[in-house]
Structures are given as structure tokens and as C-alpha cells.
């Protein structure tokens, strides 16, 4: 008997819900059926009339009705609200521009630097840093640039009023600082700003960025350098990127190499970007010169290490096809928004 009552109320409730044409009518339906004193909660009053073994099923049924009705009510409410705003399906202009402020962006130099850091961190490298204003010792002497070395010339290097201080010409003095303050083994990656007295043009900037890597330990070899840089190449430029070494000379590494990556555009087949060679010069590297170890108090008979350095602007120009290094420092919002 009472069970039938549930069905009856359900039918009536749904019919009235269906019939409601505006928010007021809908509210009236809501109050009538599922407000605290509404008909559906009211069904619970009949619980005492139910046989004990049926009580559970009855209660369940009332609750089901309550929740299913609530759901239908919410749906109806949404429909009515849409109609209230006057937006019918046809006139609702979904082509209007959206309204939300965009996220910002990082400068391409920062993006590349962070990417490199991230990749080398997975190999256990930590970020080290040093000041832009460096000592001549850290920038040159300790890095095996003897007095009279051309790089030390005032026409290439910015010295400060104190001739023992300069604006670092590379990030390599961070190696010196770190080795002076940490015993081996070490693995560091050191990004930073560098300065050379270059007259600005499309490919030169007196102010540029490098990222430096240094790994010192027992029996570190050129094979480790090649392995780690190959990992970096694949992660940074694409999984089919290959790495090759060419012999070169740097005062603070011996042997020294220049590092080429296979061209990310033509995958080594030759194109305009790689000047048809299939390869792009990316980094200078080599095994840390024993004189550097001596300068920082490491024993070159105990440890070996590799170091590499990359110019971030150069890589940015190659990777993003930037035609003039000065575009990177012009800070035109439209230009930066591309990265």
C-alpha cells in the first residue's frame, strides 16, 4: 500500500517538474516535493507502518527517489536558467573571444638554460653559480691562460677600475670556484652571463650567456664526455641526434675538442641551417688540463675530469632560427610571445 504511494508521488512529481515553465514554478515544485517538509521526505513518516523486514527496502526506495528527483530538478533548473539569460541554442555566440588572462612566458635564453639544467640534473649534476665580476685569477690564471695570452687583452676583456677584477669572459671561473671549495668528485652545471668586448652585430653581443659543465672523478674520460653529451643531444634536440668530436685547442682542457650535433633540421642530410654539412657546432669541451687541477689544489694523478661550455644565444639562434642576436635583447612583446 505505502509502496504504491511512492510510485504515485514519483509520477506526480515528475509530471509537475516537466510542466514547470519558469524558475518560480520550479521552486514551487522543489518546495512541494523535496524541501525538508516536502512530500518525498514525508514518505519516511510511514516507516512505522511498514513490516520490520520491509523497512530497509522502503527506506532505500525513498532515498533513491529523492536523489533521482534532485538530479532531474537540477537539470531542469539549468535549462530554465539558460532560457532566462535569453540565450537559446541558436543565438548563444560561442565565437565570441574567451576571457582569461594568458600565462606568461620565459625568455628563450632561460628556456634553453633550464632545459639544459634539467637534462644534466638527471645525470646527477647540480647547479653552481659565480659572480659576473670575477678575479683575474679565477677567469684566467687558474684556467691556464698565461700572462700575455690574447684573451686577457683589454681590447677583448672588460676590466674594472681594479685591474685584478673583470667581467668574466666565460662561465669557466665557476669551475675554479667550485673546485676550490669542494673536494672531488664533483658534477656541476653552471649557467651564467659572460662578457666580451665585441662590437655588437648580428652574431656578436658584448653580453651573452654560457652554460658550463664539469665532471671530475676517478678515471673520467673522453668517452664519458661523449656519452653524457650524446644524452644531452638526444634530450635537447631530438632522439636521433648524433654527436661528433673534432680536435681543437682550449687553454684549460687537454685534449680539447669541439662538439658537433647532427643537424636537427635535416637530420644530417645537409640543409641551409647546417650549411650543407649535416652538422652544427654546439660546444667546446675537453679533459680538464692538469694545470687547472694544480691551480685549485686537486691532484692530477688522482683525478681526471671533463668540462664543456656552450653559448646559449648561439644555440637559440640555431634552434629557433633567430636571424640576429640583438632580437634576443630587444624585448619586443610580439617577438617574445613566439617562444
Amino acid at each position, binding site marked *: 500500500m505505502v509502496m504504491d504511494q511512492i510510485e504515485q508521488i514519483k509520477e506526480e512529481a515528475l509530471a509537475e517538474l516537466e510542466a514547470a515553465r519558469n524558475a518560480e514554478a520550479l521552486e514551487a515544485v522543489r518546495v512541494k516535493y523535496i524541501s525538508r517538509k516536502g512530500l518525498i521526505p514525508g514518505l519516511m513518516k510511514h516507516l512505522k507502518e511498514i513490516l520490520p523486514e520491509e523497512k530497509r527496502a522502503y527506506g532505500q526506495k525513498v532515498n533513491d527517489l529523492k536523489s533521482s528527483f534532485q538530479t532531474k530538478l537540477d537539470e531542469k533548473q539549468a535549462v530554465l536558467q539558460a532560457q532566462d539569460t535569453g540565450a537559446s541554442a541558436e543565438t548563444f555566440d560561442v565565437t565570441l573571444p574567451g576571457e582569461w588572462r594568458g600565462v606568461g*612566458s620565459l625568455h628563450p635564453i632561460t628556456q634553453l638554460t633550464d632545459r639544459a639544467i634539467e637534462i644534466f640534473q638527471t645525470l646527477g649534476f647540480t647547479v653552481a653559480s659565480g659572480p659576473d665580476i670575477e678575479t683575474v685569477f679565477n677567469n684566467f690564471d687558474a684556467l691556464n691562460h698565461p700572462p700575455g695570452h690574447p684573451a686577457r687583452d683589454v681590447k677583448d676583456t672588460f676590466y*674594472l*677600475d681594479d685591474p685584478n677584477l673583470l667581467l668574466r669572459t666565460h662561465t669557466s671561473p665557476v669551475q675554479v670556484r667550485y673546485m676550490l671549495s669542494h673536494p672531488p668528485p664533483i658534477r656541476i652545471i653552471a649557467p651564467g*652571463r659572460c662578457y666580451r668586448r665585441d662590437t655588437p652585430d648580428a652574431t656578436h653581443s658584448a*653580453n651573452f650567456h654560457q652554460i658550463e659543465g664539469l665532471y671530475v672523478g676517478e678515471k673520467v674520460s*673522453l*668517452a*664519458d664526455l*661523449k656519452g653524457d653529451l650524446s644524452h644531452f643531444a638526444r634530450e635537447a634536440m631530438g632522439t636521433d641526434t648524433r654527436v661528433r668530436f673534432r680536435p681543437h685547442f682550449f687553454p684549460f682542457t687537454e685534449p680539447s675538442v669541439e662538439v658537433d650535433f647532427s643537424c636537427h633540421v635535416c637530420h644530417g642530410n645537409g640543409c641551409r641551417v647546417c650549411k650543407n654539412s649535416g652538422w652544427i657546432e654546439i660546444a667546446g669541451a675537453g*679533459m680538464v688540463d692538469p694545470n687547472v687541477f694544480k691551480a685549485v689544489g686537486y691532484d692530477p694523478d688522482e683525478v681526471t675530469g671533463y668540462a664543456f661550455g656552450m653559448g646559449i644565444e648561439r644555440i637559440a639562434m640555431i634552434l629557433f632560427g633567430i636571424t640576429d642576436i640583438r632580437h634576443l635583447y630587444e624585448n619586443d612583446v610580439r617577438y617574445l610571445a613566439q617562444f
Partner: protein
Amino acid sequence: MKLPVSWLKEYVDFDDTVQGLADKLTFSGVEVEGIETVGGDSAGRADPCADEGAGTPDTVLDLEITPNRPDCLSVIGIAREVATLYGSALKWPVVERVETGVPMDSLTRVEVEDPQGCPRYTARVLQDVVIGPAPDWMQRRLTLAGIRPINNVVDITNYVMLETGHPLHAFDQALLQEGRVVVRRARAGETMLTLDGEERDLSPEMLVIADAEVPVAVAGVMGGAGSEIRATTSQVVLESACFDPLLTRATSRQLALSTESSYRFERGVDAATVEWTSRRAAQLMAEHAGARVASGVVDLYSATVAERTVTCRWEFVRDLTGMSIQNAEIEAILSALGLTSLATDADSFTVRIPTFRADLERDVDVVEEVARIHGLDHVPTKAPRAEIVPGADYTFHRSRADLKAHLVGLGLREIMNYSLTAPALLDLLNPDDRERRLVLPHPISADQSVLRPSLIPQMVETIGRNHARQIPEALLFEWGRVYQWAGAERQETERICIGLMGPVGRGSFDKRSPVKPPEMFGWMKGLVSRLLEALRIDAWSVGRLAHPGLEAGPSVEILIGGEAIGVMGLLRGDVRREYRLSEPVAVAELDVEALLQHGGRIQRAQDVPVYPAVVRDMALVVDADILHADILRVIRANADQALEQIQLFDIFEGEAIGKGRKSMAYSVTYRSPNGTLTDEDANVYHQRVKDAVRRELNVTIREG
């Protein structure tokens, strides 16, 4: 260095294409930067040594020689590399006995006053020289190598320099006072007209070649016009010498004069072959300038080159390169390079270093030789060994990465400006910091002559540039270092600068009306608040600030526990007008270390409240000089513990309120952690608040 391939072939055989040769050279350390084909027209002259006949083009390699390899700054030097790479023999030019003239001693005298500056000096005298053009093939080779032919004597000195790497010089002996040569330091006040037609001031730091009276050449750099070979020259003093690299470099730098000669002396020439080179040149002068070579040579060789040996462990070669290379292969490479084996055992080998390889001093240097000749493609690609080194600190980068992510998340676009900037720009924003600026003594230009003491000036410049390019709005940040004097210390600190231009805080249907200063300040303050909130820095406040670049009212310093960690404010009107910025521009600058130090701590979680809140509104009409902070203070001091939040939701000024007054509407939230707050309780709390506000501030409460 330009190297005609046909010339190279005179000294070495190799069975390969030019491209093949170029690759071999590049991958053994002599980078071929370009391959150029020259000539091929009917005017192209025959080269007797070339495979090609007359009129055929010649191939020229453009080589980059690294500074450690002065031995490669010559055709023979490269031929030596090629011989090593192809396993063929180096064919030295045959220098026969050419001295047919009278004894040398009777013709000239040489003194070296500075044997350190000039470790070896040789002189020969050539008589009966007939000046004329050099043979065509010689002229062509010089031209291909980038040197302009002049006359047979001069061309021969240049030719032999390119051939051997030894710069030579020829003097017209008739133009030398007393016909003799003194190698000495220049005297103060001495000047000389160099071959390039410049009158040069000499100084005692410079080494010169002088005659009995005056300097006739800057040693190793350039000859003087006064003793130049000319059409009438008939007796020549031929100099072949070795000058100190550092001294040559210093002189060249001081005179701002770099020549083929100074380039080679700066890098170091092999003293051992100085005399042979002189003979080689004399031979060519006899052949091509009709010279009769006086017998004998002046050879002042103060310190013969010490013989050098290097010992290296076999295993070290393999350990450092990672290559698997057999001892026998190592030996073969060293031998091909001219490194004579002196001793070998199971553990190590000892080699004698030839005099032309001054760069080989240590075992690592020898390892590099083996590696580059064996080929770096033999270096295996070892699988990376990831390892956390004890003491490694990853927090430095992580905390910065987090902060950077917040800035981007807030909608800011990163810009990057130079560290060096213009004093005029700094003066515009803050002439008061002049004393603290770090000024470069030798800048490239005035525009980049000062290290920036703040990021704000260039931010303003950037905003101005974008505005000039018709960009309506910008939300920018820069993260960079600033540099200044802090007492006697040069201080370098990391900062963040934020700059806002245009209606950045409005929706796109609301962009047209002009931006008002309080609105712009509000956006900046909101942005900074959100940033600090993201860093979990809640205990911060603002304090009034007098900054010469910012408006007097809307400019504040940002304080954490009394410590100023930054500034923010609106740009002063006259600064804006410099960039034709008609609407308010907001800038902020924050210290990165301070942000990281105060922020980013791990938060203890608190359960969210379970009981409902009661919200009560009130609109206060107060005097215009009453601050929001004053009202908050009074409310907080007088509310019950149940006070949860105070929110300002409306500010209104206008005639309805009255002049000098403003309406500020607050919604106050009360909630108890212990139970549902009744309306009655909330009313009591709220009444207490209203009474206090009314009592302590001159206020009318409009509704509640």
C-alpha cells in the same frame, strides 16, 4: 691561413680528393673552414709544381690554425701533418751550397743587445742583386695565399715565410748606417716610418732592429721604409731570426699593428731551423734575383733549444680517451709525428719532442696527439653514469625554478636586458645612485658603460620601446643581477623587476577607458601580493617611499619584518613622458635572495572549518584621509575571536557622499570553530565592531 693545394703537393704525396684531404685535416685538428677554387681563366698562370696545366683553376684551403700549433703556420708544417695522416714521406726542399761570394765578416757586423728578446739572429749578405719581378709561379702562389707580390727579393722573403713559417726580412744594406745591424730596445722618443707609411712612436718596451744610428725595423713586426728594398737595391742584408713571443705581442698590440710576421712570432717559431731558412731564402735569391751569396753567416744563438722528453703511461692514453688502442698503434702514431721513441717498457714510454713542437710538454699533450691522429671517432659513446655526488645541493636551482614558475603563472612575460647600460638612462630614473654605480674604465660605448644598479631603468626603456611600437599593454618581468658599490665592496645581487603597461587588469570588453593611477597601482599590488602568497609569505607590509623615479603617493617599499625586500610604485610623470607614455606605468623590483629566504617553507596543514559562517556587511562613510589599513586595525582590535575575514568590496566617492568623504563597504565573516554561529551571536559581534568603528574613526555607517 690560405693554402694552395698545388703548393702543398710539392712537399708531400697523398692519394685523396681535396674534400677527403680537408676532412682528414679537420678531424685531426687543422680545421678547413673553406675550400676555394681560384682562377681557371686564360690569365691564370702556369704553376710548374701543380698537377694542373696552365689556365687551370687552383684549389685553396682556408685553414684555422689553433694558437697551440704555430708549427702549422706554413706549407711545410701542413705537409708534415699530411705526411703523418697519409703515412707518406715529407719532401724537404733541397738546399744546396749557395755561398759563392766573399766572406761575410768583411761585409757587415751584427750585435744583439737583448738576447732574451732575440734568442737567435742570423744574417746573410747578398751582393749584386738585380731587382725585378719574381717568377710567375711564385707570384701566383703568393697571390693565392693572400700576399701581394712586390719584387723578387721581398717576394722571396714572403714565399719562404709561407713555406717554412719563419718570417724573414731583407734590408737594403746601402741604406743602413755603417751597413750594420744592432738588435736593441728602442730609445725613448725614437720614431720610425714603417713600410705601411705610418710614422710610429717607439718606446723602450719595444725591440727594434737598428743600424748604427736609428731603428730600421720593429723586430718581428714590420720593417722600416728607410731601408726598404727598392729598384736600385744591389746589396741585401737578409735577416732570419727568432724573437720573444710575448715581447712581439706586446709591441704589436702597442702599435696596433698585426702582420703575418708578428702573428707567427707571437705564437713562437722554431729557433732550431732559423739558419736553414736563411739558406733556403738565399738559394732562391741566387736563383731568381741574381744574388751572389756571401760566404758564411752571422748566427747569434744565445740559448740553444733544450731537448725535451715526455714520459707517459700506456694505460693513461686509454684511460683519458676511453679508446681501446694497442701500444703498437700508439707507437706508430708517435713515430709518424716525429716523436722519437727513447725508451719503452710494459708500463710507459718516453719520447723525444722535436723542436718544432713546443706545445708538447706533458703526458696529456702526447695523449692528445695520439687521440687526434687515431681519430676522435674512435672515442666510444659511453652510457651515462648518473650519480648523486655527496654534498650536491639541488635546492639552489629548485627554489629559483619555483619562483620563476609563479611569475609565468601570474601572466608575466620574461624580458632580458644587457647588464651594461647608459648613465643617461640611470640618471633619468635615479640620479641619486650615481655614487654607487660601477663604471667601466674601458667601455665599448657610453651606452654600455655602467653596470646596472637596478633593473627598473631598462624595464622602463623596454616598456617605452614596446609602446612606441604600438603595443597597447605589457606584463613583463626581468630576472637579473644588479651591481653597485656597498661601502668599499662591489655588490652583485639577484633581483626580479616587474613592469606593467596598459589596461592589463581588465577584461577585453573593458579596455578602452583610460587607466587610472589607483587602478594601475592596484594591479601591481595585486600581482605582488599573489606572488608573495604563492611563496607563502604572509607577514608583509608596505611603507611609504621616496624614490626619485616614482610618483610621491603611489610608491612604497615592501617590508617583511621591517626589512625592505623591494619597491613598487607608479612611474613619475616626467619619466613617462620621455617615452611618450601617457598613462600610468607600474614597476616593482624585488630581491630574489630575500624572497627565497622568507618564502617556500613547508606549510603545516590545517583542517578546513566544519561549521557555517555568518557574513555581515557594512558601508562606512569616512574622511578621505582614512586608510583601509586604519579601518582593518579598528575592526581587528574590537572583533570577537569569531572574526574570520574582512573584505572590502566597494569604494565610492561622489556628491551623494559629500566632499572629502568616501564610502567603503566591507563584508565581515564570522565563524566559530566550536559550533554553528547563531544569527544572534553574529549580530552581537558585528554591533561591537560597528560601535568601535564609529567611536574611533569619524564615520557614518550607512547600512548593516
